[in-house]
């Protein structure tokens, strides 16, 4: 992770490759130059005044390091250049320092002050790189300096520097583990960070320093879940793995009802029909004891938010989600991971290798999951052997009564492969299928016996070994096979196979009474030349024959034992001595040899051929430890589910933050994807602005309907697809014309399209308006369908309320006059209430006031009373929908005294009915978590024709999500929602020019959003510009020394984050609009709103 920035840093080094003369110094090329001399030369270059020489020298030195050559003697010469002004040289010096500082600690100290200076640099990239190098220098003496630097960087304004601080934590920890407590404090602080940039890195630090401090995660759990999709991919892997462990400690097993079944994998293997009633009773008994299982919503949140990542292009992310689902999801839901894992099988062979091992483990426990993908595991002759063998493992795990015939047919092909290791593994696999599936046992055995006549000895040997295991299951029926195998001893040389045959004959000598002694005779003859394992089995065979058929084999046994007595291997000598004592009765041997027969010829259980992946899932899947089937250093055990769930309230977060207030609702998308949300809002409208008129230009007959249909999403969709196919046909025709022609055609269309936009009243807005309607209505149906799954009745009711209630507020953001466009002209906007906005201050007055307060020069910006010129009203409840009651609201831009974190919303009720409306009140607010509402006082009654004004406070958590609630009267209730334009989420603050500049300097990088725009003719005067900006957002003007610049400042209401707006006019009508704010979402949305306001 840290490599990529470092990499891009180094890349600069190559930029001046074209440097002409210095590249070839005479000393380095000469054959007589020794290494020593060569370094001398480099030193000279480093000491020179020319940066180009220094750069060339550093390049060569770094190349030496990369090739593993020792360049440590250059340290003094290099370290001098750490303060070099040339950034390219500097970067390479850093690379050198990181490599050699540990070896030359005293000298390295000389460079520290440079880094300390760098840590204070105004440029965030330099601060970050200074910290990166400082923390990579492994010099124990600077530990306190590193600690200090990390602490400071952890509170840096720039998230990038904070990320670097998180990276530095494990480095410091590995240098000095005594710093743990202090580092944990920093981790705790950074865990609370709200940016996606920091999240992955700090969790990594957490995992390396204090993975046991699970308590630090509680408060950040929901935030991490919600940020996850926007975190960079490597961070996602780390977070998902950590959250898997976390969930195992905090939630209950979603499969507790089935856990009894799972404890008995054998049964699961054979399927449900073999369940016996005893277990059922047990099951039932234990179920009674347990409370009915309800999944913790936080558990669900994790599963839901990780699922989309199965579609990541990064195999590590897909694997991380897969293991999370395997370990945490209810059995019924685990299946979703199979498809994604199978997809990874197309990746590089190393990825395949890892994925297949994990699939092998999973397929034992949850076979059904991969069964549909059986064919994806079929083996190609071009697969590397290690992949073939893993696929074979999976195929064997997946075999059951229904698919076994297909699988065996496949195996048949594999047996003829040229890759003999693979053939051997296939034979083993057949053996396993035969033991597991009784139905095919005989078929398999016959097949294997046929292989005994194979020409390849390895194949035969492997078959013998497997047959031996199979025969143990039912020896009596197969004496023919045993006889056949006895004959093989003449030919087969593979020791393991010989040993297996001998064991078989000994074990079942009663079935082959005539052959067995003869085999022993032959073996006695060749005894001295056999391998050790064979010798042991010869002794074994001899002993068994002696016990069953001593008449024929007594002498042979004696002979073998004598040979063994003088064998070179002490194991064999030992065994011979031991067996002689056991089987040959002597005075000394006592009671033991009475039992010799029982000892040797006891019924032995047939070996269970099982997968080497069985029970591997006690390791966290996807981990190195799982792969090695052994605990790796630093492996964190995957805890068992708790019996009782710990207190879930530990995850509640008191301080609402915008990232968190989204936790439960899916509509969070808007906020969560800071970057996407706004551009989605943008692309939506532009899209329909594009596609609608296009249909106009293409088919004239439809032109009339397109505008009226624009409200209904499905209508316009159908139409669109219609003309798409048409267009497709056209395309085909035009193919010959070539792309050039098509391009022109496009241009033409676009040109036509533009026409309607300039026609009529508010022409350009119409298309935008249409767009935003279809956008919001589609987003509503979106949220509606999700509401159905997660929430209950009222939500779906809300969906059925007339569409005007929801899209209207959003659409009307652009001003009241458009409302009439939407609302079929039966609505006349109420005039703004002059009475309720007493503190309208003209902009010029504010400027005057600024002058006065400047003398105070207070450092903390003070809140100002709001400034605004026009009041926009929004509709909360339309007259028609409200059955005569109409409700409008506007943001009065007053502080809301009961709670300074709330936005004041003025609501006006007008009763257009014939009768009195009573008991007007708010009820059942449906708010995303963190959002709060301060309800207005109930209006007891409202006479016909009357209007009433109330103020309510809403804490929007600095997000533009709608606050949904019910508006109740004595007889009815209405579902309504208030969605604030981004400009209303802030309150103006006063600042001096200097303060503004200072604050702006802190909010650069990601916190800065700039857009270029062109100011229309009517928006050229200072007055209009200021008026439009202040109308779009609740900000105050900041004095400015430059003519062509306008500055505004505000603070968000909930968190008090600064929002700074700068509008810089360029020559012509062009202008640059810049918004600086820590809240990137607010910043981007604000840029849009303000530039729209200016462009009108």
């Amino acid at each position: 992770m840290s490599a990529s920035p470092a990499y891009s840093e180094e890349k600069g080094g190559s930029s001046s490759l074209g440097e002409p003369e210095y590249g070839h110094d005479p000393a380095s090329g000469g054959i007589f130059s020794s290494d020593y001399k060569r370094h001398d030369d480099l030193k000279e270059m480093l000491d020179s005044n020319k940066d180009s020489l220094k750069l060339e020298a550093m390049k060569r030195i770094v190349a030496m390091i990369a090739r593993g050559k020792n360049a440590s003697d250059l340290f003094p010469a290099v370290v001098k250049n750490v303060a070099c002004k040339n950034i390219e040289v500097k970067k390479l010096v850093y690379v050198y320092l990181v490599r050699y500082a540990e070896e030359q600690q005293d000298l390295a100290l000389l460079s520290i002050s440079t880094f300390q200076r760098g840590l204070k640099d105004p440029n965030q990239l330099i601060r970050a790189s200074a910290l990166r190098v400082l923390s990579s220098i492994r010099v124990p003496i600077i530990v306190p300096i590193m600690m200090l630097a990390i602490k400071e960087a952890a509170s840096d304004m720039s998230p990038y520097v904070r990320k670097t601080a998180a990276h530095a934590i494990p480095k410091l920890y590995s240098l000095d583990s005594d710093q743990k407590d202090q580092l944990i404090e920093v981790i705790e602080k950074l865990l609370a960070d709200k940016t996606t940039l920091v999240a992955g890195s700090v969790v990594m630090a957490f995992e390396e320093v204090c993975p046991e401090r699970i308590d630090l995660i509680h408060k950040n759990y929901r935030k991490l879940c919600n940020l996850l999709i926007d975190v960079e991919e490597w961070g996602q892997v780390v977070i998902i793995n950590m959250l898997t462990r976390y969930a195992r400690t905090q939630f209950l097993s979603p499969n507790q009802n089935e856990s009894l079944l799972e404890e008995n994998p054998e049964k699961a293997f054979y399927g449900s029909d073999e369940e016996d009633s005893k277990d059922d009773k047990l099951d039932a008994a234990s179920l009674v004891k347990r409370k009915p299982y309800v999944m913790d919503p936080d558990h669900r949140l994790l599963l839901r938010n990780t699922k989309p990542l199965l579609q990541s292009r990064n195999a590590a992310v897909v694997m991380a989600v897969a293991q999370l689902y395997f370990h945490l999801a209810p059995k019924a839901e685990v299946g979703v991971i199979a498809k994604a894992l199978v997809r990874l099988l197309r990746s590089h062979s190393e990825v395949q290798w890892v994925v297949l091992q994990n699939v092998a483990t999973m397929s034992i426990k949850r076979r059904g999951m991969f069964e549909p993908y059986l064919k994806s595991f079929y083996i190609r002759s071009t697969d590397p052997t290690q992949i073939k063998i893993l696929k074979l493992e999976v195929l064997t795990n997946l075999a059951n009564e229904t698919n076994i015939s297909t699988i065996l047919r496949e195996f048949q092909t594999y047996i003829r492969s040229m890759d003999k290791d693979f053939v051997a593994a296939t034979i083993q696999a057949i053996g396993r299928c035969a033991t597991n599936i009784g139905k095919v046992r005989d078929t398999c055995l016959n097949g294997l016996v046929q292989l005994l006549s194979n020409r390849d000895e390895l194949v035969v040997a492997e078959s013998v070994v497997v047959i031996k295991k199979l025969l143990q299951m039912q020896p009596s029926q197969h004496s023919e096979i045993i006889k056949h195998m006895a004959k093989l001893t003449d030919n087969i040389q593979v020791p393991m196979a010989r040993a297996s045959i001998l064991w078989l004959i000994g074990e079942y000598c009663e079935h082959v009474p005539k052959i067995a002694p003869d085999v022993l005779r032959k073996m006695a003859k060749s005894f001295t030349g056999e391998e050790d394992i064979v010798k042991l089995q010869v002794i074994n065979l001899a002993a068994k024959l002696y016990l069953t058929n001593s008449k024929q084999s007594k002498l042979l046994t004696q002979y073998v034992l004598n040979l063994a007595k003088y064998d070179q291997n002490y194991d064999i000598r030992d065994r011979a001595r031991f067996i002689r004592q056991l089987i040959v009765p002597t005075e000394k041997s006592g009671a033991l040899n009475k039992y010799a027969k029982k000892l040797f010829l006891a019924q032995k259980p047939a070996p269970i051929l099982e997968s080497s992946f069985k029970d591997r899932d006690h390791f966290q899947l996807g981990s190195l430890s799982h792969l090695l089937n052994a605990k790796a250093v630093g492996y964190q055990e995957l805890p068992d589910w708790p019996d009782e769930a710990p207190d879930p309230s530990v995850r509640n977060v008191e301080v609402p933050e915008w990232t968190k207030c989204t936790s439960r609702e899916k509509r969070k998308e808007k906020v969560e994807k800071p970057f996407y949300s706004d551009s989605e809002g943008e692309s939506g409208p532009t899209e329909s602005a594009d596609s609608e008129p296009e249909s106009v230009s293409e088919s004239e007959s439809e032109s009339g309907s397109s505008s009226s249909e624009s409200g209904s999403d499905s209508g316009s969709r159908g139409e669109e697809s219609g003309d798409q196919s048409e267009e497709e046909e056209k395309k085909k025709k035009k193919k010959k014309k070539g792309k050039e022609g098509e391009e022109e055609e496009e241009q033409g269309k676009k040109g036509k399209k533009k026409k309607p936009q300039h026609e009529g009243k508010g022409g350009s807005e119409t298309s935008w308006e249409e767009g935003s309607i279809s956008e919001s209505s589609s987003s509503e149906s979106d949220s509606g369908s999700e509401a159905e799954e997660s929430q209950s009745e009222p939500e779906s009711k809300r969906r059925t309320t007339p569409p005007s209630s929801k899209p209207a507020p959003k659409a009307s953001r652009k001003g009241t006059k458009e409302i009439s466009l939407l609302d079929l002209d039966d609505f006349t906007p109420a005039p703004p209430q002059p009475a309720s906005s007493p503190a309208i201050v003209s902009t010029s007055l504010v400027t005057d006031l600024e002058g006065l307060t400047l003398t105070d020069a207070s450092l903390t910006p003070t809140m100002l009373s709001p400034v605004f010129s026009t009041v926009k009203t929004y509709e909360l409840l339309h007259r028609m929908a409200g059955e005569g009651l109409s409700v409008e609201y506007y943001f009065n831009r007053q502080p809301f005294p009961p709670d300074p974190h709330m936005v004041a919303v003025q609501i006006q009720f007008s009763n257009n009915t014939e009768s009195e409306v009573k008991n007007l009140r708010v009820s059942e607010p449906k708010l995303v978590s963190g959002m709060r509402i301060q309800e207005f006082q109930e209006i007891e009654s409202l006479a016909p024709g009357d209007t009433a004004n109330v103020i309510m406070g809403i804490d929007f958590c600095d997000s533009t999500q709608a606050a949904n609630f019910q508006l109740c009267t004595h007889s009815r209730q209405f579902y309504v929602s208030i969605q604030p334009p981004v400009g209303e989420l802030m309150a103006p603050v006063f600042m001096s020019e200097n303060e503004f500049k200072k604050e702006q300097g802190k909010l650069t990088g990601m916190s800065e959003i700039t857009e270029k725009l062109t100011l229309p003719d009517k928006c050229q005067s200072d007055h209009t510009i200021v008026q439009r900006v202040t109308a779009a957002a609740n900000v105050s003007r900041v004095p400015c020394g430059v003519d062509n610049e306008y500055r505004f400042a505000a603070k968000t209401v909930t968190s008090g984050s600064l929002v700074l707006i700068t509008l810089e006019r360029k020559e012509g009508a062009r202008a640059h609009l810049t918004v600086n704010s820590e809240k990137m979402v607010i910043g981007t949305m604000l840029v849009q709103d303000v530039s729209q306001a200016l462009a009108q």
Partner: protein
Amino acid sequence: MIHSLFLINSSGDIFLEKHWKSVVSRSVCDYFFEAQERATEAENVPPVIPTPHHYLLNVYRHKIFFVAVIQTEVPPLFVIEFLHRVVDTFQDYFGSTNVGDQLPTGQLSVVPWRRTGVKYTNNEAYFDVIEEIDAIIDKSGSTITAEIQGVIDACVKLTGMPDLTLSFMNPRLLDDVSFHPCVRFKRWESERILSFIPPDGNFRLLSYHVSAQNLVAIPVYVKHNISFRDSSSLGRFEITVGPKQTMGKTVEGVMVTSQMPKGVLNMSLTPSQGMHTFDPVTKLLSWDVGKINPQKLPSLKGTMSLQAGTSKPDENPTINLQFKIQQLAISGLKVNRLDMYGEKYKPFKGIKYMTKAGKFQVRT
């Protein structure tokens, strides 16, 4: 995580090393060399090699082993995927591709995958829909398994911050997809439209998989007659390649390779078209067929000389096939339209389709 990285070439030289923490002696690579020796072939070197104090995780590409040294538990795929990305970056940087001169600079941007201030005089966006058919065909010519692995590769050279949407005629085909991080996932979920701000230059927008459960059209067939006789030291070899479900398109770039059994000493073959070679050492037969003319099907006939005295090989060779079909996505996937928002200019747009053989094997 990754402690050190060693680059080892095919002759076993460690030609590059990089250490992120304390220096790990390059002698640690001895464990790797041991494993390499055991594996005999490069492709069988285990990607994870445990040693007493370290774990060596490696990937093999371009005949170079990239060996990462790990000391503690880490998800192996994390390292393997990362190493592959490193290789990709090297390839872009040192390779001849035209994006080589630009490394990502967007680390501070809200669109980290795109550099800022992009400017082109010719604004163009090309999309290649490339599908590969993985299939196993059995002796009798019936399909044992076939699946399609598709990608949409893009080359986008557009000024500024263009916001693109790409829609399909039949998006339902795409039920198993993975995206470049630039694609807005929610939009896809709800509307089946790819909406994204593209990276600059070449990138893979999307990969998709049409699984073995679906019916996949097989565009070629192979007729074969390969027989070894026990008595004689000569074997018969005859294969013919022909088009099957090609949707009227030409099959070109056909290449047949086959690993012959060890017992085959030499082959004497006559192709009706194209060139063929047989390497008696590696026993690899390859036949560069070229285009298939349906009127005159290409064939390769002749005899194999077998080692005298030995009995006939008990396996028949597998035939691997390569081919290309231009202007066809075999799954039927079709791009409906591409739109650009956020910028004023009109880009030049192009979409190309191609079907190729992936791992296409015919068992004989």
